[in-house]
């Protein structure tokens, strides 16, 4: 098995077909890389989404706890008002 070209320049020229050969190989490489990149990027987006999902659950939990406290305090307030009214 021998290197088929006399020089690197000849290799890039591809016997005059350089443009077509390198165009075909280049675009194919780009197409593959684009899909590889997209597949990895999707995974990153999923990681972001799951973090957002966890943060949202925590916010809902906190909001619920806060509103529970508030309703407790308002019911106490109502009671005291009622008591005042009765008196």
């Amino acid at each position, binding site marked *: 098995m021998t290197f088929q070209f006399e020089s690197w320049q000849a290799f890039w020229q*591809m016997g005059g077909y350089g443009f077509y*050969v390198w165009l075909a190989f280049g675009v194919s490489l780009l*197409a593959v890389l684009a899909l590889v990149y997209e*597949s990895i990027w999707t995974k990153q987006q999923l990681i972001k989404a799951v973090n957002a999902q*966890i943060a949202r659950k925590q916010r809902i939990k906190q909001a619920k706890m806060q509103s529970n406290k508030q309703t407790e305090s308002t019911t106490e307030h109502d009671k005291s008002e009622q008591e005042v009214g009765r008196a």
Partner: protein
Amino acid sequence: MWKWLHPYAKSESAYQLCKTLLPWFAWSSVLTLFVGTLWGLAFAPADYQQGDSFRIIYIHVPSAILSMGAYSAMAIAAFVGMVWQIRTSYMAMMAIAPVGAMMTFIALFTGAAWGKPMWGTWWVWDARLTSELVLLFLYLGVISLYKAFDDKVQAGKAASVMALVGVINLPIIHYSVEWWNTLHQGATISKFERPSIASEMLWPLLINLLGASLLVGALSIKRLQNELLRREIHRPWAVKTLIKESKA
């Protein structure tokens, strides 16, 4: 007889299987494609008629074969999904579709870049070229049909029907060079007799064919993993996996 296969339809075990397989497919495809492409570009002898332009064959033929191979794989996944009602199978179908579309695009593009210097034109409405273009549209159709439904079970069924109907195009592509008078040359390596290509030229082609198959496998596996996680992002196993893998 096929009972042992069933646990793999469970999303979590499918994900784990993909995780084990992915590095093998990915690295072996990088290695084989590197060796095959280098061999084809620099060490294989030039064609006596086409000179060095024939070196495009080393991506054109593997990608064209794999564009049909990926379609068969996608159609099998669609069939399994429809017959046995396996959701994971629909996900596999949708994981393969973009990879097959990419292979079809590469086959068409490299064909055009080869056709220009050899036939004097980028494109002709010839049977082989047109049927391969239809294959690209079938892939895009399957993908868009799936995306058009919000209910992904409905989406899987609809896209499966389209994928299965499109199988008719595969023999049309394969035999197009025999059934019609075309500009495209006939089969070179997929012949039952000895292939009509010198062995010094054939080896890198076979290596690249193996590499392209491994590449389709690797990308499909990666995309199936993504699809499994996306669909089950509210399930504990997916949340756990994503958190674990974001730290790694």
